[in-house]
């Protein structure tokens, strides 16, 4: 018995995680800086934590919806397997902020990204990656999850941005006095 088992074999799903980490690093290096460091860290942490909590809550005592990676156990690579959500969430907020999407376009934007998320998730279930192994889950069930999580991500972004700006203003005024 091991507390954090190593992968049964180091195969495509582990490589998928490593490549995702690489993509995230490249995005952070090469995309023009749009957000303060604290906001970027919060966005990345939020996307990983929310994915972790949703996965954890869906793992019930009597039903197994899906396994992530090689087994139903929590492996060492499971700690890193939430990293692939981070570049996705970062790009999602980055484009939203860059194009200043507003009004009804926001709903359309969320729908497009949710469908892209579904497409990406489908790709991770194929033998090419084998990241998710569905048992009592169908890919269509993920659509409402994306449609809930993505508006929450945008609300979270607006909220932390407001807190950041308010604190910055307050601090600037205080130091000027």
């Amino acid at each position: 018995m091991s507390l954090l088992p190593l992968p049964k074999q180091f195969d495509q799903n582990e490589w998928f995680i490593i490549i995702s980490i690489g993509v995230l690093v490249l995005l952070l290096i090469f995309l023009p800086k749009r957000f303060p460091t604290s906001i970027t860290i919060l966005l990345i942490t939020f996307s990983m934590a929310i994915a972790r909590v949703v996965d954890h809550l869906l793992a019930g005592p009597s039903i197994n919806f899906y396994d992530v990676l090689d087994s139903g156990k929590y492996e060492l690579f499971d700690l890193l397997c939430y990293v692939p959500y981070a570049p996705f969430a970062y790009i999602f907020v980055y484009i939203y902020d860059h194009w200043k999407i507003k009004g009804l376009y926001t709903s359309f934007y969320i729908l497009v990204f949710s469908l892209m998320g579904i497409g990406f998730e489908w790709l991770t279930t194929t033998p090419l990656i084998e990241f998710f192994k569905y048992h009592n889950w169908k890919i269509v069930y993920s659509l409402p999850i994306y449609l809930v999580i993505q508006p929450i991500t945008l609300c979270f972004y607006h909220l932390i941005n407001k807190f950041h700006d308010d604190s910055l203003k307050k601090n600037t005024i205080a130091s000027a006095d």
Partner: protein
Amino acid sequence: MTGNNLVIIQKTSNTPKGPIMIKLAGFISLSLILINSIFTYKKKTPILTLIFVWLVIEFFFTSFISVIVDNAEYWKVSKNTKDFIIFRVAEVIVIPIVMLFYLEVIHAKISVKFKMMFAVIWILLLFCVESLLVSLDIFNYTKWQIGWSIAVWFLFLLLVLLTQSLFNKILRREGVI
């Protein structure tokens, strides 16, 4: 009180679902009180730091539970759905908020001696929550030793302090605090 009413009351109290529903209602109420408190409390810790620490706790605490329950099987969680919901409420809401309150308490300008005293109090408080769950048969220890709980709560409080300190440094550099 008529005889008929008495019979109805006896039947209700003898229903096996009764105590479980009381436990569930109690824990949901406790979590709602804590959520209300954390939102309404006049915070001394910067809000962005609190959000970051909360996300980190959620990620690592749910991971810890997966390791202890699913991998090592040190804790055996009740198969009853309502008990399982209580367990999830405790791990995702109650315990993280209790840990966040620790940050609020030690943020006040008190001496190191008092800060250490509060750390001991908080470890005992977290241990009390854990013991309450055990005494209510929400989960049971299998190969777990009580001393390990103290060590785990100490490490989590340490994680809280470290993440707070790191994030505060970033905010200070950005001029937010």
